[in-house]
């Protein structure tokens, strides 16, 4: 099968049981996406598929032949950080770092959702522009667990990037 990941073409023989996450980690050497639970409960495996955030452990690799997959490796590199990556470093939005690639991919997807006006559980209105208050950011990032509990710093980092985008 053929996959497009971070703009690059990959070819792989894939077991139908292989999750997108295991394809990335075990077959293609893209180990930036993390496995924390393998059940879609922790968010450490979050990647962007056609621009939308998804738990890559909850989807099978064979379902993604024509999709554009973006992983943490596709957002930036240590020498050329994505604004979210730089903000996470600046605000210490992580400690052990294991949930971090998922947090950052999730944040990238979330900012796009907010820009499109998608409401959340805490939104006052269902339509119109979304103002990314701390409560909105926290709510929209609650699918990504961080046991080190960098949550306040994650909110600081995302708020800063959201403000720059606005």
């Amino acid at each position, binding site marked *: 099968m053929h996959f497009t990941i971070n703009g690059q073409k990959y070819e792989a023989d894939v*077991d139908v*049981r*292989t999750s997108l996450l*295991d394809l990335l*980690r*075990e077959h293609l*050497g*893209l*180990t*930036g996406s*993390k*496995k*924390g*639970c393998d*059940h879609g*409960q*922790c968010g*450490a495996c979050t990647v962007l598929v056609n621009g939308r955030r998804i738990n890559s452990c909850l989807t099978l690799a064979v379902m993604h032949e024509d999709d554009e997959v973006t*992983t*943490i*490796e596709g*957002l*930036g*590199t*240590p*020498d050329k*950080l994505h604004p979210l*990556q730089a903000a*996470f*470093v600046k605000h*210490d939005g*992580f*400690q*052990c*770092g*294991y*949930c*971090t*690639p998922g947090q*950052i991919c999730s944040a990238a997807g979330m900012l796009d959702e907010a820009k499109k006006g998608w409401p959340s559980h*805490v939104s006052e209105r269902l339509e119109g522009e979304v103002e990314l208050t*701390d*409560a909105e*950011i*926290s*709510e929209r*990032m*609650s*699918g990504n*667990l*961080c*046991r*080190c*509990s*960098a*949550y*306040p*710093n*994650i909110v*600081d980092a995302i708020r800063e990037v959201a403000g720059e985008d606005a």
Partner: protein
Amino acid sequence: MTDTNSLTMDKPVEHSLLDNGAQHVIGKGLDRIDGPKKVTGTATYGAEFHPDNCAQGFLVRAPFACGKLTGIHSDAAKAMPGVIDVIVDTDRFARNPAQGGETEAPKQGVSKVAYFGEPLALVVAETFEQARDAAQAVTFDFVPEPGRYDFDKYRDQTDIPADGAAPAQHSQGDLEQAMRDAEVVIDEVWTTPSQNSAAMEPHVTVAHWDGDTLTVHGSYQMVAYQQQSLADALGLKREQVHMISPYVGGGFGSKLGISSECIAAAIAAKQTGRPVKVVMTRQNVFDATVRRSNTHQRIRLAADREGRLSGIGHDTITSNLDGEDFFEPAGLATHFLYGGENREVNHAIVRLNRVLSGSMRAPGEAAGMLALECAMDELAEKLGIDPIELRKRNDPDKDPEKGVPYSSRKLTQCLDEGATKFGWDKRNPKPAAVREGEWLIGIGMAAAARPNMVMPGQARVSLTPEGRAVVQTDMTDIGTGTYTILAQIAGELLGLPIDRVDVELGDSDNPPGPGSGGSWGAGSSGSTVYLACETLREKIAKAMGCDVGDLTLKDGQAIAANRSVELGSLVGDGLSAIGKIEPGETGENTNQAGYGAHFAEVAVNVTTGEVRLRRMLGVFAAGRILNEKTARSQCLGGMTFGIGAALTEELVHDGNNGKLVNRDLAEYHLPVNADVPQLEVMFLEERDPYANPLQAKGIGELGISGAGAAVANAIYNATGKRVRDYPLTLDKLLDALPAL
């Protein structure tokens, strides 16, 4: 030859070289040096080492709780596609993980199953999917045996463990008499449930052999100890095991000792002749690694009308497997936090067939202060004294049991600073008196305390002709910031910006460090770097022909007597020194601990009982803060563990077989982002010369100590209901809510 600079902490280090540095990097909130790797996914964690020809292992676990294993049927599994072997070694597989700090093998042998989900065999296959599916095809013969699953049923059948982090039993004066004589008493029981560390990275080992030498990549908190423990389990010499753990995706105690996957992977790699990777599933981590024990805690307080304690009692019952000495030392802080001449601090264990209990962040205080600090709140209310004032009246001037002085103690200052910053004076002390719409509002506080320790350790620091420093030790960074603070210490003492300091961690080929546990990491490992740098400074001074006291090191230059020379040009082919620290008499003749105060404001829904934490402040005094950014993050993490303990975290054991009912991250409720507001952290200026040459005390566990009690006390203030059974879920509050 590399010089070694050893220090045993027998005397205070009154003048720390960190105060004379010219680089001014110590203490600063610098970004983590490992940050760019972590945010780009290029930091490599255990499972991401993938040697050529690596096979995948999947643990097969007991589908029953207690019994004698009489047969393992693996033919069907072996016949499945891709399966290389099914590894059965009932003598050498680990029954349960090793406890923290253990250098011997964990309890081995799985033919007598002790708890549901105990790992019994390992399927090895070409791919993860093949191994996982084949594991379902392995079946067992067993003779069931009666087990002990229900804590309350066996609560009066306890044994007294050997002393651990704290003495198991301590008795002084006559508490019974003090309780009879007291004008006001508290005598209540609090219970806390089992909990799981739930580090985001599951336990993992990738094992491969080269002749008789075993290399394991994995997720380990205390490499030097776990290396020996693994060697012991396999009958190897320590030197035959090379253990590598450069990044650890969280530990919180759960990775202090090697666990089942480590021994199984090593055996499988030997038997199959291939590298073998075993990553635990999340269910595996819950079922078969380690939990914090549930506790049953009776607190007794005896006081006069002014609130002065004459007696304090803390009797804790915990649970563990047979043959395990570890007990949750819930009374750890009770030994020294408050005065009172009549004291009982006792611990006992109920033997249960449940997954091992062991260390989880702040073993002791994390559970114990949930009880003690709520008892103090109850006493304050009974006396009509402000809870902060009550604590200040019982702030002793020396250790009330050992009689030794405190090395440093700013409890009262933390309480006062916090009260001002949080607006404590605006709190209505009358419970259930403040309502905003459908929310009852409450404010609570609690003290924080956590002992400080030094653990033996070593580090090598080298200076290169290019003018860079290299720090090497098998110490780990489990998110605590070790990479960064070691670079800051070396940078400060050698006069280098931290981008000219390389830090290499988590490799057992490097000098053995103290490991990450018990909040001793920064102080102990940092001291080893300090000591190595002290020797290097003397060598540089010699090369400069000056007295070390006249030497200034800054921005890669050595400066003395109006001469400024590039550091790299003074080191020849390179200079190295090893720093070595040992605990000593200051640990005995002073009581060392960090202190703090937590303040929380909650809103409790009048209809549903849902609790929302609205704001929270932690004020801490923990000696020198080495990096204010990473130290703050440690406190945020600790406080959030406290929030979880107060509100949501609870492992539920099936009363019929001890099996965990909620063994995943959907059902075991860690705090999520929306549960945690923008917490505030404040540090008080402090130095502790008795602790170590850095004058720093541990901080990783101080933040959790007492945090949950502040939340619980706020819930009482909001609702008027004392819930003494953690976590304080909404069902326990319903009967206290106003009628609809």
